[in-house]
């Protein structure tokens, strides 16, 4: 899907998701980043309004300032541009587990109405899955420990399900009290960014209708009374993101 509002402005799903995500990040945030759109959004934020955004990748790169988009979470670019590179016990135990990270930024294959996310398998059983996915990586503990979690996911009916096939990383479990029950100290998911909306149910992206959102969601979606339209990407934002994408090997 490509959307168009102004006569000369068009953008792709990935572009508006990435720009929307980037704008959420604050200059003073400490952010634990996953690869893909989360990483692109964080690097984009640093190149615009948040030059001091403190980025940590699970590969051990601390306060890194990549000039080109990494393909993997451990690309040399991330290490070369980092303040320091540390071992993984420091990353997971001292930085993440201790509660020092403001924002965790995750992608997912499947998400449910309580923002639990699945990156393990789709369909049938764990032992004999229809489609086996990569698994948890850092996500389980990122979802548990960060003060706030932002999830970026491509919205389809297959991805937005009433209940995920497997809770790889807990959002809000089965509702109020789940996070407390499991001792998860972080705040949990605060925003879900998709190609059509942010799932605090507050914003629709420009050019997207309520019907399109309902069509792509596997549960009965509630809309905010004061539904807003996401700010349209600015030409400068689109130019920046396109420059960044060009630096990728992909």
């Amino acid at each position, binding site marked *: 899907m490509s959307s168009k509002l102004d006569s000369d402005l068009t953008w792709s799903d990935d572009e508006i998701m990435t720009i929307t995500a980037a704008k959420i990040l604050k200059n003073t945030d400490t952010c634990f980043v996953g690869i893909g759109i989360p990483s692109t959004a964080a690097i984009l934020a640093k190149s615009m309004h948040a030059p001091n955004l403190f980025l940590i990748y699970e590969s051990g790169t601390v306060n890194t300032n990549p000039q080109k988009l990494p393909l993997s979470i451990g690309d040399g670019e991330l290490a070369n541009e980092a303040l320091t590179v540390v071992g993984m016990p420091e990353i997971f135990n001292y930085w993440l587990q201790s509660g020092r990270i403001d924002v965790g930024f995750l992608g997912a294959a499947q998400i449910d109405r309580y923002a639990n996310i699945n990156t393990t398998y789709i369909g049938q059983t764990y032992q004999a899955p229809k489609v086996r996915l990569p698994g948890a*990586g850092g996500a389980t*503990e990122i979802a548990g420990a960060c003060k706030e979690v932002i999830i970026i996911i491509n919205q389809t009916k297959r991805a937005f399900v009433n209940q995920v096939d497997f809770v790889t990383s807990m959002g809000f479990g089965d509702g109020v009290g789940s996070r407390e029950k499991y001792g998860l100290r972080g705040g949990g998911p605060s925003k879900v960014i998709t190609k059509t909306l942010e799932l605090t149910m507050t914003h629709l992206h420009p050019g997207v209708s309520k019907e399109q959102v309902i069509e792509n969601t596997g549960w009965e979606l509630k809309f905010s009374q004061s539904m807003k339209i996401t700010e349209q990407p600015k030409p400068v934002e689109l130019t920046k993101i396109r420059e960044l994408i060009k630096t990728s*090997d992909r």
Partner: protein
Amino acid sequence: MVKFADLPSAINEFVKDGETIAMEGFTHLIPFAAGHEIIRQKIKDLTAIRLTPDLIYDQMIGAGCIKKLIFSWGGNPGVGSLHRFRDAYQNSWPQKLEIEEHTHAGLTNKYVAGASGLPFTVMRGYRGSDLFDQTSGVVEINSPFSDEVLTAVSAINPDVTVLHAQQADKAGNVMLWGITGVAREAVFAAKKVLVTVEEVVEEFTPKFNSIIIPNIQIDVISLAPRGAWPSYASGYYERDNSAYIAWDKIAKERDTFLTWLDDVIHKESNAKGPKS
């Protein structure tokens, strides 16, 4: 006492059928040359541990070396799926693959426990995830000093850890720099340690973010220039992202994979990628 040996001899002496092996290196310094030699020597029934199985274990799984995989993220980084891993797990090709799955934080801590000589260590993790019930060696534990319920993870102690590093000195100390992942923990957790290196130098020049593994922790060192390709060795060559993208096609079908095994692994000169 550490010794230097050529890679085929080192693998032949230190990696045996049925052992538990950890071949670490997080995106960086993945010991591909050693993995390829294990395939060539047809070593089998390995229990293989890695946070990210990556292409190295996808290749070893497809070649029939691995019976059980212990891991925490099984994808082709930035590209997609590991097709040989999926085919083995879902269709038992070329043989049944047992898995034990963790989170990065969990598997990291299992190495920490192993390196520390403890039966387990304590962390906050897994709770709330369905993984908690699907994996082994992960249990709830009451904090003896507070009201909290925490997670205990059992130690892993590989029979052999295999690493790739940038340099060894003449005395057999090893230096690596850049992203080091769980290299240090995997060494201290292991019973035997095999390291391949880009270069053997007279003496080390200090490097940004380097770690040094003293020779008393290492059993054997083999010279293997470009031994981490298509991953990378900071200061020597960059990650060959195009090879990671190309792997997706090679691994997708069994016959293209088997052709790759014949053409690349069994013709050693093709296994190190383009000369840089």
